[in-house]
């Protein structure tokens, strides 16, 4: 009995040591690669900072004052919010509908699941380049198809009204598979007994969907929405590859603006000020979502 106690103590001690070691490593990692740079960027947002010329001079709130007076910032913010709203809605609604469809079929389920997930694992750079060609107004695939129906002169990425929606469509196509897989996993957790009981009570499919399936899937739904919003606020690659913010500024989003200020003009201070604003926007949106989650007792 005593021997066992001694063993347990030593096990506990080594477990404690392991916890401390892992914690220290994680804290160090996040301090160096996450928290440190965040603090540095925040401080830098108050400076005229050009690392190439080795300048770092505090200029108080000048970066923020200039930013809030810059029409391009507001345009980029508006475009970012528009992009997030449409793509998140598209991904969630379409993902949910496809998952429902896949859940109801018996044959080829795993093959269809793989097909929908395939674009998710493709590199975004490759996908953006292929879609750029598809959208080409002269030699692109979509133009060829539309021409067959007598529709010509659709400029897609070169049309200020169509450019951002075209990128949104590509993004939804690429990312919807992720939502499908998550929703499918959630649907498998819906208790079959409740569905069967509701059938006996005379509930139709729509009633089952609204009163059983969606409430059961609420945590999954909220997880997909929150992660999607956070990632789409940081959209950059497809904009960079497909339009470079153009035509004009019609596809300018905040992250592209940050890239341009930091790595083309080397105005790191100004770019940091935009980053801080983006961080605050994402924080507010996430906070609101958590509040809604709590309200819904999730």
């Amino acid at each position, binding site marked *: 009995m005593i021997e066992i106690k001694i063993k347990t103590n030593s096990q506990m001690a080594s477990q404690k040591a392991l916890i401390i070691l892992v914690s220290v490593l994680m804290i160090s990692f996040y301090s160096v690669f996450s928290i440190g740079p965040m603090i540095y960027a925040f401080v830098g947002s108050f400076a005229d900072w050009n*690392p*190439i*010329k*080795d300048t770092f001079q505090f200029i108080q709130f000048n970066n923020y004052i*200039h930013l809030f*007076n*810059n*029409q*391009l910032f507001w345009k980029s913010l508006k475009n970012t919010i528009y992009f997030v709203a449409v793509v998140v809605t598209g991904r969630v609604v379409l993902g949910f509908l496809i998952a429902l469809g896949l859940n109801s079929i018996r044959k080829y389920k795993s093959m269809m699941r793989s097909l929908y997930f395939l674009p998710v694992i493709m590199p975004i750079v490759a996908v953006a380049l292929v879609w750029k060609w598809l959208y080409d*107004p*002269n030699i692109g695939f979509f133009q060829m198809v539309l021409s067959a129906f007598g529709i*010509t*002169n659709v*400029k897609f990425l*070169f*049309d*200020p009204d169509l450019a951002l929606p075209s990128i949104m469509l590509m993004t939804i196509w690429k990312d919807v598979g992720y939502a499908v897989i998550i929703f499918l996993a959630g649907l498998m957790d819906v208790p079959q007994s409740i569905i069967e009981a509701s059938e006996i009570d005379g509930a139709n499919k729509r009633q089952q969907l609204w009163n059983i399936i969606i409430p059961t899937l609420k945590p999954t739904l909220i997880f997909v929405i929150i992660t999607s919003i956070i990632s789409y606020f940081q959209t950059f690659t497809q904009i960079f590859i497909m339009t470079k913010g*153009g*035509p*004009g*500024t*019609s596809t300018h989003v905040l992250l592209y603006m940050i890239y*341009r200020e930091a*790595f*083309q*003009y*080397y*105005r790191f201070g*100004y770019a940091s000020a935009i980053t801080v604003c983006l961080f605050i926007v994402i924080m507010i949106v996430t906070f609101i979502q958590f509040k809604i989650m709590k309200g819904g007792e999730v």
Partner: protein
Amino acid sequence: MKKVLLVMGLVLMMSVVIFAGSVTAASEESEEITVWIPGDEVEYSFFYNMFEEYEKVNENVDFKIEQQPWGDYWTKLPLELQSGRGPELFMAHTAYSDVLLPNSKELPFEVSELEKRFNNPGIFLGENGRPVFIPLVYYGAVMYYNLDHWQEAGLTEEDVPATWDQLEEVAQKLTVYDGDKVVRAGFDYSTWYTMADLIYQQGQGLVDKNGETTIDSEAGVNVLERIKKWENDLRISDFTLGNGSPEDSFLRYQSSIIYGHAWMANWFSSTDEELNFKAFPIPVWSEDAPVVTRADMELTFGISKNVTDKQYEVLVDFTEFVLNNDQIMLDIANGFSGVSSRKDLVGKGKDSSTIKAINSQMDKMIPMVFPREYETVIRQTMEEVAVMDLSIEEALNNAVQQLSLSDLTSVNYYENNYEHAEELK
């Protein structure tokens, strides 16, 4: 006798051993230099050849050339140099000189000495007043036209336009439509330097004496009105065909005349042997235009601040070797279809319509180093008017606002030092 032979044999053996040792030491001392260049051997054959030529006469020097994609190159290079990594030697560019200069070594040459043999505009100086980058070639914008399209439209050499009004007339004959759509533009102007040049042609500098942009001046408004005329009234252009790169629409046979650049001549020839084209000088707003276009330049390769003393010694010698070698200098000038910066080589380039066009407008070319954001904003402004249908006033207001943080001193400097500076507003 035997003793003498033995001693001689020993001396011979020792000599062989010492010689072999010295050879080994020499090879051990061979200097490896990493070079970054944003293009391949087809595009920059003359630069690759320049390294080979130097290696031939300096066997202890080994250039390790690392090719980087153009798009990444200019973002990566300044950051790598600044962080102490990056190449020892690198291709430079005027548009990035402000971020490359702080991390490049000065050359131990006297500017006054260089000026005796080289045309001065564009010698970039370091903190101590010594040159860092020296121009190798001057070149700039020219117009290209597709000879087959030209002949199909019944045009001859006599029809080559000298003014914008003449160009509009010719372009109308060249434009091809499919219903409402322009499928072959008579004229593709969609590069940012169309607007910059046309402002200059009206005698308006691009920066005022306070260092602020003049893009919203009367001249700027005139250019944008002209662009609207090309797009909407005459319908000789469609910005989206070239979308900022008229050379692309030209290579796709979707434009007949383009606002191009001298460097494109060799690129067109190597990309499509069947493309039948010629160049002519940039048309002018009026005959008394003080500027026709900007003069760009290609520079000597930059030496990183991080090189060792030995590497620096080699790279200074390499730079001198290039500048003093007639054939290399001419190859570079011909490669870019420009005019050599060396006074004694001016006019000795190959006989091509592009080089002729550059030569004919050379005295009205303003040497200029444009900040990158000015280029971006000009292009954006053109797009806002031509593609987005924004009002000229709104587009120009956006441009002024975006340039308010930019340092435009380089534009001011070059405008003030231009030969016909007194004719610029």
